[in-house]
């Protein structure tokens, strides 16, 4: 079976946008685990071990912005708001928003099967994606 499929063109083997998004969903998950790990290790290096509890560290891991740790015992928020952490948070925001919005499209496809309906869902999802990215980047870089 594998030998036969090699004679098919990439298109006939199913390499299209939906397949690439299927792959993106899985790879972006791996990227997000990596970003969470970086943020959590960074938190421990910056003193989280004695000044934050596990739920706080996880919250910082989900998005590394200083607003997420302002209610902890961290005395100085300055090292937590550097360009490095804002870039990490921006990367997380972009990857997570793309992952999530595509997930919503997948769920909608289970209930909306008409081609025109699916086109509308996709158009709406792009507007929604842009709105979330703009609002999220605003929070990450101005907080």
């Amino acid at each position, binding site marked *: 079976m594998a030998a036969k499929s090699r004679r098919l063109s990439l298109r006939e083997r199913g390499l299209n946008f939906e397949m690439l998004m299927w792959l993106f969903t*899985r790879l972006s*998950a*791996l990227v997000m*685990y990596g970003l969470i790990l970086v943020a959590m290790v960074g938190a421990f290096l910056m003193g989280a071990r004695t000044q934050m*509890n*596990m*739920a706080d560290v*996880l919250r910082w891991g*989900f998005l590394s912005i200083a*607003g997420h740790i302002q*209610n902890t015992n961290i005395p100085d928020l300055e090292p937590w708001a550097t360009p490095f952490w804002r870039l990490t948070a921006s990367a997380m925001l972009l990857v*997570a928003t793309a992952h*999530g*919005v595509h*997930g*919503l499209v997948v*769920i909608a496809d289970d209930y909306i*099967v008409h081609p025109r309906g699916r086109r509308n869902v996709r158009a709406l999802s792009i507007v929604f994606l842009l709105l*979330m990215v703009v*609002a*999220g980047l*605003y*929070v990450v870089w101005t*907080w």
Partner: protein
Amino acid sequence: MALKHNVSLATALRYKGRGPMWAFILHRLGGLGMAILLTVHILSTALGGPVGQFLNDLYMHWAFQIVVYFFVLFHAVNGLRITLLDLWPSLWVYGREALWIEWAVFLPIYGLAVYTILSTALGG
């Protein structure tokens, strides 16, 4: 294409997909919940004001956090199972075992999160 789409609720509830079905339902519920929560959370934080402050205070409440941490951590652990098995498809033979490992990984992490959330909320 004999897929039947107009399945009644009673028939749907009688479907016994067991472990994988529950993982699918929890994964989808968690994903949908996170999309709604993060949309409101990002917009309320960006707009600020009393309404935004009220919503963000609500998210900090321990009862809310216990629910959110369940769905977020389950989505993360279940997503790792799906990712690993999908990227190495020969492992799907051990799909049932992977589900048991998943719960064995999820429950201690979630238990620790609930313990810290509760001890922080009750201990001050």
